[in-house]
């Protein structure tokens, strides 16, 4: 009986000690942490946050070092740092010649794209931005193909192979992924990657256009890119 009373006391003392220790440890742990107060502040910035104009450097580089490219300018509206309606206008040029086939291809025409970017960054007001978006593009253009003529391998006749002012139209869609950052003052710089899909097109009897202003080569390559310098007005 006495032994049972002793063990009861011991167990009670042990329980009290463990409760005290637990309280002490918990208090210490809470002292180590900062108190985080979650307050949701409403985004009070205005809808219209400004206009930005930009130009692409990849197109002129393509023209300087290759046989086709484009000059392009864009205007973008900033709505709440979240939505960015954008219009892109440019002039595409091609002046290509192949030494093997002896064919030359020339075309110069304007093009336009219209679309929207969404700021995908968690912090919308950060100086870095990641955008996802789309563009609808359209161009109406003419191209010339010239060659010294081709010789029939069987009959031996020489045949002219020239076409002038072949009229074409092209409609396409682009999925856009862009990153850019504020460099200093109103200047931003960033990369833009494009995945393009042709929607509708028309072409002349001689065949499809080799280069489409604003779209690029009309073959299988559907990827494109831009390096933009942007000035926030």
């Amino acid at each position: 009986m006495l032994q049972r009373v002793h063990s009861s006391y011991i167990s009670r003392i042990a329980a009290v000690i463990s409760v005290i220790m637990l309280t002490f440890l918990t208090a210490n742990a809470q002292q180590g942490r900062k108190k985080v107060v979650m307050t949701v502040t409403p985004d009070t910035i205005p809808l219209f946050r400004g206009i930005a104009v930009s130009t692409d450097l990849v197109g002129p580089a393509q023209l300087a070092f290759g046989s086709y490219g484009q000059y392009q300018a864009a205007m973008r509206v900033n709505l709440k740092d979240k939505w960015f309606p954008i219009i892109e206008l440019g002039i595409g040029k091609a002046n290509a010649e192949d030494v093997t086939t002896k064919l030359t291809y020339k075309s110069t025409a304007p093009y336009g794209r219209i679309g929207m970017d969404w700021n995908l960054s968690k912090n919308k007001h950060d100086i870095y931005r990641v955008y996802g978006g789309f563009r609808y593009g359209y161009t109406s253009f003419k191209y010339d193909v010239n060659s010294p003529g081709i010789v029939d391998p069987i009959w031996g006749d020489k045949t002219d192979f020239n076409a002038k002012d072949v009229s074409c139209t092209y409609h396409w869609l682009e999925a856009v992924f862009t990153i850019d950052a504020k460099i200093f003052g109103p200047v931003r710089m960033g990369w833009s990657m494009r995945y393009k899909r042709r929607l509708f097109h028309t072409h002349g009897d001689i065949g499809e256009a080799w280069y489409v202003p604003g779209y690029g080569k009309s073959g299988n390559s559907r990827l494109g890119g831009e390096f933009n310098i942007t000035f926030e007005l």
Partner: protein
Amino acid sequence: MKKNRGWDLTLSLYILVTIFIVAGCSSIDCPLNNRVYAKYKLAGNIKTLADSLTLSANLGDGNDSVIINKSVNTDSFQLPMSYQRNEDVFFMEIKNATSAQFDTIKVTKTNTPHFEAVDCNPAIFHVVTGVTYTKNRIDTIVINNPNVTYDATKSTFLIHFKNSSSN
């Protein structure tokens, strides 16, 4: 926090540079089959010609150019078309151990230049408007698909031969 952002931008830059390098690779988009030939497929009772078949093109200057030389067990054959003439004439010789028979095929057509790309050889496409032939060994020639392009899967003509004994 700053470290993570820098790492994100570096990773994004690597991904973009890789994509641009891949996208920037030069490619030639010429069709694999770049021959423009009219395809003649044997039809009717004789779907394979056991006798030897020789076909030559009349060059129009008194000379011929042999296109197919002594082909045996022929079930189809392909003939070129001239780039700018309105009519092509082919001479056909079908020969067996005992005899030889001759026919002439005349194909009328239109010629349209076809441009694929600067780095692809130019081609001439055709639309067949008519076909006439002698009937020594040939029974009939039917226009199956008048468009002669890179597409060699569709037969331009279905050609029916008579039996060698029926002549």
